[in-house]
């Protein structure tokens, strides 16, 4: 866990002095090493009987006050091991890829420093043994992603996007913190072990409140409605960042959190339903938006939002394993997609508009092939990994409510469609860019990770095959974590098969739709309504309704209330003294007779006062 931190620190210290690729290689090595360690840990746990696959250790005491005792410590259970495995695994690949991708950047070593730091924060997030230390990672990924998004700070949009990401995340954090406070208020402890052991004592209302507040946190981090806006802007960051943070790891933190607090969710009332609906609606809305984007990365961004929606659908319907399964496979293929897109952008010399591409499959064969594999996977075409994971989620949704399933299904079609659109526009059709642009395939250091990810995308489904219980590796592995919180599947295997088939059909429909529309043409305004391109105008609404009005409010406070009210209240006291003085000093006329008169008046006042006392 500490390795990436060490890498980051080393990079901070010596990165400048190292020659270009070595900083990256060093960073990659550290992450790879932690991947190895993760594997070791996994094997360790695997060796134990399934009931005892938890181990909790404390590094040192962090914050102590009153009855509060927070440690820096790790809580290793199958869930966190799953997380670290794929986090470190994918991170390693992305690190390696970045060595190539960032090779021309001035601040090469800084970039790797941030990346390492990010991985560190992510590991803290998933390994921590208490809510607050998790929060450290939680915020840490927020901060590092802020740095990474605004890595190209000279672009005002990048700077703004980073800031936006951080702030929107903070809104979620507000929920997270409040939930933590509630937990501590009622349970007096914040370590996972103790909280989950005693969560049963809480009233339903409290549990529900806590669950909801945590969900708010997750919504912020995982870019769900209504806080998804930051993720799309975050595409201003370098593409490996998009791949790492906004596809594979950070955004899944929300899902992880929800899975982590499954004992709480399980006890809450109706929160699951809320989560499921938020998830599925997000999935749908984002998918719709994805259909009309022209930026290669924005399509992927909306797609990510949409996929995250699926994950929450899984969480909400109690299908934690399905959600995790989807998370893992999504990490594979989405990382692949992003890296592929990065490869394209790299090859096209920073062109991101898919309308200005086309026919790249010949020029960039490796990228094209891997990208297409990822597409098929995300589209949910059997037997690619996406098919299995999405299938699990949708099946769970069906069990909960056909309505959820229906929206999910429509979204599945849309997913296949918009990804198809992108693939066709980028790799097929006619070349729509100036032939003076010398498009080139990416170097090995970038393509090798693509291959690895492609393999994972294709076969990742094997992790959890619904064929028989024996093949549900992931479910069996995670079962001790979720225990009774997991909603048992009541769907008959035949229905399950029908649903699976339907999934396959949806994928095909979507792909067919895309190919019919986009394989030849690059411009179909009817299929790209402006309001979808603008993501339903939600972002603009925020900008108008919140950002601008709060700016105005702030200005008002600064210019009017502070200056004219608060400060003036102070200054007017001083002014009053001056004013009084100016009036009173006129009394001081310089004339003896006036002074004598005042003396007399004073005397008369005194005598008058005594008259009132006289005779008493």
């Amino acid at each position: 866990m500490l390795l990436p931190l060490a890498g980051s620190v080393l990079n901070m210290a010596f990165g400048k002095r190292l020659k270009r690729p070595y900083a990256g290689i060093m960073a990659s090595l550290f992450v790879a090493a932690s991947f190895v360690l993760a594997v070791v840990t996994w094997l360790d746990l695997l060796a134990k009987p399934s009931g005892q696959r938890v181990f909790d250790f404390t590094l040192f005491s962090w914050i102590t006050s009153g009855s509060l005792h927070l440690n820096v410590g790790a809580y290793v259970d199958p869930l966190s091991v799953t997380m670290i495995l794929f986090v470190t695994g994918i991170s390693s690949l992305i690190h390696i890829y970045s060595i190539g991708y960032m090779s021309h950047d001035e601040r090469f070593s800084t970039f790797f420093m941030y990346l390492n730091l990010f991985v560190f924060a992510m590991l803290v997030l998933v390994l921590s043994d208490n809510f607050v230390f998790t929060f450290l990672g939680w915020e840490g990924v927020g901060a590092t992603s802020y740095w990474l998004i605004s890595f190209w700070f000279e672009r005002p949009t990048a700077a703004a996007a980073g800031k936006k990401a951080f702030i929107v995340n903070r809104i979620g954090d507000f929920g997270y913190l409040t939930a933590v406070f509630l937990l501590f208020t009622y349970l007096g402890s914040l370590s996972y072990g103790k909280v989950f052991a005693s969560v049963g004592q809480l009233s339903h209302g409290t549990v529900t409140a806590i669950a909801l507040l945590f969900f708010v946190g997750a919504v912020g981090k995982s870019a769900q409605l209504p806080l998804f806006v930051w993720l799309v802007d975050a595409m201003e960051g370098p593409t490996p960042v998009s791949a790492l943070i906004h596809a594979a790891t950070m955004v899944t933190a929300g899902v992880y959190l929800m899975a982590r607090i499954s004992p709480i969710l399980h006890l809450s009332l109706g929160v699951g339903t809320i989560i499921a609906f938020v998830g599925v609606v997000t999935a749908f809305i984002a998918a719709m938006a994805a259909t009309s984007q022209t930026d290669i990365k924005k399509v992927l961004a909306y797609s990510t939002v949409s996929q995250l929606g699926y994950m929450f659908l899984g969480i909400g319907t109690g299908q934690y394993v399905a959600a995790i399964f989807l998370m893992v496979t999504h990490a594979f293929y989405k990382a692949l997609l992003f890296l592929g897109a990065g490869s394209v952008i790299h090859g096209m010399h920073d062109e991101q508009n898919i309308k200005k591409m086309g026919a790249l499959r010949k020029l960039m064969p490796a990228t094209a092939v891997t990208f297409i594999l990822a597409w098929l996977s995300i589209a949910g075409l059997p037997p690619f990994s996406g098919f299995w994971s999405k299938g699990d989620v949708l099946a769970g949704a069906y069990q909960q409510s056909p309505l959820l399933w229906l929206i999910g299904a429509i979204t599945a079609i849309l997913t296949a469609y918009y990804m198809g659109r992108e693939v066709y526009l980028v790799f097929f059709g006619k070349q729509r860019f100036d032939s003076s642009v010398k498009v080139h395939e990416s170097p090995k250091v970038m393509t090798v990770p693509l291959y690895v990810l492609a393999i994972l995308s294709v076969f990742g489904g094997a992790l959890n095959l619904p064929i028989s219980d024996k093949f549900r590796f992931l479910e069996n592995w995670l079962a001790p974590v979720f225990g009774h919180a997991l909603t048992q599947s009541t769907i008959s295997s035949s229905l399950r098969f029908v649903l699976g088939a339907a999934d396959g059909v949806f994928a095909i429909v979507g792909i067919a739709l895309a190919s019919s529309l986009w394989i030849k043409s690059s411009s179909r305004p009817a299929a790209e309504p402006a309001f979808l391109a603008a993501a339903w105008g939600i972002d603009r609404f925020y900008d108008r309704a919140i950002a601008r009005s709060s700016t105005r409010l702030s200005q008002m406070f600064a210019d009017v209330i502070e200056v004219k009210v608060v400060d003036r209240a102070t200054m007017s006291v001083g002014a009053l003294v001056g004013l009084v003085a100016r009036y009173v000093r006129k009394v001081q006329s310089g004339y003896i007779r006036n002074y004598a008169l005042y003396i007399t008046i004073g005397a008369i006042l005194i005598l008058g006062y005594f008259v009132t006392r006289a005779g008493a």
Partner: protein
Amino acid sequence: MNLLIFVPVVGAIIVALIGSKQLAMSVAKVVALLDFVLAVVVLIQFNTNSGGFQGVSSISWVPAFGISWKLGVDGISLFLVLLTAILFPIALFGSKETKSVGSYGAWMLLLEASLIGSFLSLDLFGFFLMFELTLIPSYFLIARWGYARAGFAAVKFFVYTFFGSAFLLVGILALVFIHQAQTGTTTFDLVTLANSTHLSNTAQEWLLVAFTIAFAIKAPLFPLHTWSPDTYGESPLGPVVIIASVMAKLGIYGMLRFDLELFPRASSILAPLLLTLGVAGIIYGAIVAASASHMRRFVAFSSLSHVGFIVLGLFALTPQGISGAVVQMFNHGIYTAALLLIIGFIYERRARMGFDGLGGLQKTAPLMAGIAMIVVMASVGLPGLSGFVGEFLILLGAFLSHRWWAVVGATGVVLSAVYMLWAYQRIFHGKQSEAIARDGFKEITKAELALVIPLVALIIFLGVYPKPMLDRVNPTVNALVAKVAHAPSYPSSANYSAQSKG
């Protein structure tokens, strides 16, 4: 303990006598460093198991009134003394004054002595004396070495805070006489007054209000803060670091030490009022900071917001809240100082305090930007950096006792991100402004680095491993909380007399 105060006093005299330029300043620096070493010695000798005062020394001063020169340190004042001792060398090394450096150094040392004296004093008279004394060096420092409108700012600062201490004095005296009426002895000794004065609730409330007005102005707590933007804006670099980081803490320290210690009952009765002010400060400061166009004023408002947090923790009256407040006092001092130093560096290069005309500095000064980023992140309370520990404890503590205030206050977490990042973005991100592109912008120098690195190191260390600090703070805080929680209530003076008979 006495040495901590007398070393800078003697230093001030020597520096004033030397007078000549370079040597005087060097001596001042050495003295400040020496005092820092002394503070460290105190830190090392501090016994972590005790919640009471340690190293108490007492000399009778004006026996007629029971005034003594009594000093002592506990977990609360320890870190404030340390903060003072850390920041003064930095402030002195960071000062680039060219005018009358001898007087400058002397005033600075005198200010240090008075601040440490205030933190250590266990006698109300001594405290008040030192509390007042802080004003004089600061006044001269601001007025003589400040910027264009420094005279105005200095007077505003002085008169405003002095006005506040009027209430403090009357409050102190009233307390002393109530004590005298009950026990027949006149004393200004804090411990005696705290332990053997019986106050009715009403009396406590009045006294608390009187004390708190003074402290709230000093802190400054919303809405008594309007001296701070002007003062921050016009002060020279060294003093502003001290005023923002240390002197502001004096107000909060006063609330903690005197309000809670002397009027525990009234503290819990009036806590909602103060919590409301704190929360209002959090939000108000944040909102105004978001529109500040002047970097120093920006810091003033962000401090207002942070002070709101500290007060929130303080009057939560829970161990977490108060510990958080103490920790945050220290940490806020550290990162505010760092922030002001960085602003100072920028000012030195650009000779302007406005945000306008800046931008893209990260390009030519990445290291400075990186340090600024750490500081900014500490200030928004990023876990792992020092700001978080305090903020989290404060909010948690407040949540335990006054839930809704904490919830509203927690929005400050979001707001601080808004204004801090906005400011950062304006300075370091974006395209370089034309002026910057033309004139260039120098990277942080080694000398400057030497100033901020200790602060940054503290920010990180205390964020990751705040235990040493909490270990020292907690016993004191627990004792204090216990005291407040078990404070007897005398709804009226009649009850008291009944009690005293029985």
